């Protein structure tokens, strides 16, 4: 009898105390990440998980300034060929391996040499890594590369435990070992990713959760329903059309940040046979098309005004935006005039679009608007895999596609606009632009770079190989009991100083 009472008491006490101990954060994601290995990873949503799992050499502020994380300071040599970085002391990886210059060297070499590594192009300019001290590395470059430090604010700068990486090889994704605030516990495909607090984190005081669980819930309505019912505590990529109801809800919080990326229409200028078409041949026709669109109305109708209309690779709020060319207002008359000048009263244009509801909705609005200026837009709905293939092979006239965006402006232009650019699907090739963009890469002086990008913009704004439409806004919805969350333009969820009230 007494034993039973004792057991009951114990159970009662544990039941009462257990909830208070566990501060578990549940985050709803739009998709299931792919392989959880920063060197192999290729999805945006994977980066959200890394933000809690892996520290990087440097990080960014919401204003896109680069600040120390695992590196405490850095400097360039005068000729721009050597980058010296000082590393933070007292950092260990989740498996106990100490973080030092050797670890950095091992990481960069993995990014360069692992066959499955998708970071090769990002670290291409690094010829070798020199360990110049226990906590100091020197990167020797093949050519000056101002974008390198910004690259280290993303996956190539994520530091993994070299011992664990060497052991696991390409299968590292099954059990990632980094040095971030949380360590990997388990992953069930398309169901959940569970992380738990890393006690020896160098900034452990700023971390207020014991456990973080990521739940991929693709349906935006269902994801929000989960937040409302309390099954998750926050979610990323709230649908713009749900923004109003979240803002009106006293139990929920709303946070947004204009992203680094863009959505636009890529036009086939010179990519194979189909590049030879009126739309791809005459820049005036493309200008007419751009003028026929009311970007503000598109934003209002499709995104409830939450996104940012755009006409350049960077949003108007970005320091790299060329203020000489503001987002054009709609001018149907001028559009018609330009089209007539080019010799057409009306023109058929086929635009490929991915067969998801949001992009199709947006393009239907575009179709309707361009129709008034004489463009008969025919929408070709395709699955993403086919769309990508056709675009790459030049089997298209125009294709509605976007780019997730990079911290460094070079990441939003170079590969698309240079003759040999790896993602130059329109095959635009203007030697002057090539020269300007190459030079912009090499200088670390912001004013110089801006001048060069502006000069390139003078040419590109007339050529319009990509007709930019808008810049998505990252929108988060959080439960009312959370505080301390800061929205970042790179869309990442940084949990430092975030906590339950």
């Amino acid at each position, binding site marked *: 009898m007494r034993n039973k009472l004792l057991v009951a008491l114990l159970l009662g006490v544990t039941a009462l105390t257990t909830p208070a101990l566990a501060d578990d954060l549940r985050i709803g994601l739009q998709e299931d990440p792919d392989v959880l290995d920063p060197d*192999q990873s290729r999805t945006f949503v994977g980066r959200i998980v890394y933000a809690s799992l892996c520290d990087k050499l440097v990080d960014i502020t919401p204003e896109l300034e680069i600040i120390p994380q695992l590196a405490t300071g850095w400097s360039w040599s005068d000729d721009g060929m050597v980058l010296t970085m000082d590393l933070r002391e007292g950092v260990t990886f989740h498996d106990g391996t100490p973080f030092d210059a050797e670890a950095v060297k091992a990481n960069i070499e993995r990014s360069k040499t692992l066959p499955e590594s998708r970071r090769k192009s990002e670290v291409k300019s690094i010829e070798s890594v020199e360990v110049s001290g226990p906590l100091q590395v020197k990167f020797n470059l093949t050519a000056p590369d101002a974008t390198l430090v910004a690259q280290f604010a993303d996956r190539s700068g994520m530091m993994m435990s070299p011992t664990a990486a060497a052991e696991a090889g390409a299968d590292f994704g099954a059990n990632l070992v980094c040095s971030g605030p949380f360590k990997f516990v388990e992953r069930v495909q398309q169901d959940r990713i569970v992380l738990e607090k890393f006690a020896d984190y160098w900034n452990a005081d700023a971390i207020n959760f014991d456990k973080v669980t990521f739940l991929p819930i693709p349906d935006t309505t269902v994801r929000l329903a989960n937040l*409302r019912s309390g099954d998750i505590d926050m979610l990323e990529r709230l649908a713009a059309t749900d923004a109003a109801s979240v803002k009106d809800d006293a139990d929920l919080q709303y946070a947004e940040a204009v992203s680094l990326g863009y959505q636009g229409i890529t036009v086939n200028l010179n990519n194979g046979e189909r590049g030879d078409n009126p739309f791809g041949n005459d820049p005036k026709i493309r200008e007419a098309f751009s003028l026929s669109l009311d970007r503000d109305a598109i934003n209002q109708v499709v995104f409830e005004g939450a996104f940012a209309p755009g006409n350049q690779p960077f949003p108007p709020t970005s320091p790299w935006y060329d203020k000489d060319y503001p987002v054009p207002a709609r001018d149907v008359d001028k559009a018609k005039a330009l089209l007539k000048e080019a010799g057409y009263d009306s023109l058929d244009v086929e635009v490929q679009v991915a067969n998801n509801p949001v992009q199709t909705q947006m393009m239907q609005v575009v179709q309707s608007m361009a129709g008034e200026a004489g463009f008969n837009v025919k929408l070709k709905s395709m699955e993403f895999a086919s769309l990508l293939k056709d675009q790459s092979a030049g089997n298209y006239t125009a294709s509605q596609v976007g780019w997730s965006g990079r911290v460094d402006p070079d990441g939003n232009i170079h590969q698309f606009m240079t003759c040999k650019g790896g993602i130059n699907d329109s095959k635009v090739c203007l030697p002057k632009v090539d020269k300007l963009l190459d030079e912009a890469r090499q200088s670390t002086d912001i004013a110089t770079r801006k001048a060069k990008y502006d000069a390139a913009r003078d040419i590109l704004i007339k050529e319009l190989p990509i007709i930019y439409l808008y810049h998505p806004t990252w929108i988060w919805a959080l439960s009312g009991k959370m505080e301390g969350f800061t929205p970042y333009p790179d869309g990442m969820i940084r949990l430092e100083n975030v906590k339950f009230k």
Partner: protein
Amino acid sequence: MLSYIARRLAIAIPTLILVSIFVFVLQKLLPGDPALVLAGEERDPEMLAFIREKYRLNDPILYQYFYWVKAMLQGDLGISLRTSQPVTELIADKLPVTIQLAVMAMVIALVIGIPAGILSAVRKGTAVDYAANFIALSGLSIPNFWLGIMLIMLVSVHLGWLPASGYESPFVDPLRSLQTMIMPAFVLGTALAATLMRHTRSAMLGVMKADYVRTARAKGLLEGAVILKHAFRNALLPIVTLGALLFGELLAGAVLTEQIFTIPGFGKLIVDAVFTRDYAVVQGVVLCTAVGFIFMNLVADVLYFLLNPRMRSSL
């Protein structure tokens, strides 16, 4: 008996081979280059070449097919192009989830369908019969994804009674498992209940006219005993064989339901795999389903054999 099973198995083999060829060819014909999708946004040419090499995408189709068959016979179904996880592992993770869904749906279907069918048969021609049939047909006619969305809005969003998505294994948290699975199981089960009800009704009708039922009535047995002990027992035969086949169809019906309720099961796995051109996963999953379907057919046939006294005596 054994020779019967052996014969059926022998027929199953060419069928399976055909399925494997068919699904393999269809996959390869799907437009879109998986290497492009896998290489990531940057589309690094080195990466593209590596992927094509590693997954043998450059090899002639026949080679790729035979290599796959060879690996499969050794128990290796390849790896998911998306996450590098072995397909066998993926299937082992996801199949139990869909089976749990199917079992729960089947239970709901049996609990609703069979009594409704019996009732309908016993009260044939009356308002009850028409009503039951109408309700059953309605259950069949509602698009299950629409029903799912409506249920989520009503039950999860407005009433807050059940979670809108997710999954928990019954071995980890049985209550939560029930909560997450009850709605999708209901959506699947109601359509099945309709079919089951109609088949039970016609099986019962067929049996109730039989001589042995008249004999039982003539003996003065209570109506209830007549129905349950004699009629139903014999009507069980077609119902059971149908049930075994329906189980296979449940796996197919789970596809959309799992998408809507975000259940990490077989159905969701294969839809995502087709869209991301994850060849190995599609091939592995379709083959598994085909094997399962053929197995269920065999089980149905064997059950038919065992339950049918006339056939048993001829063994």
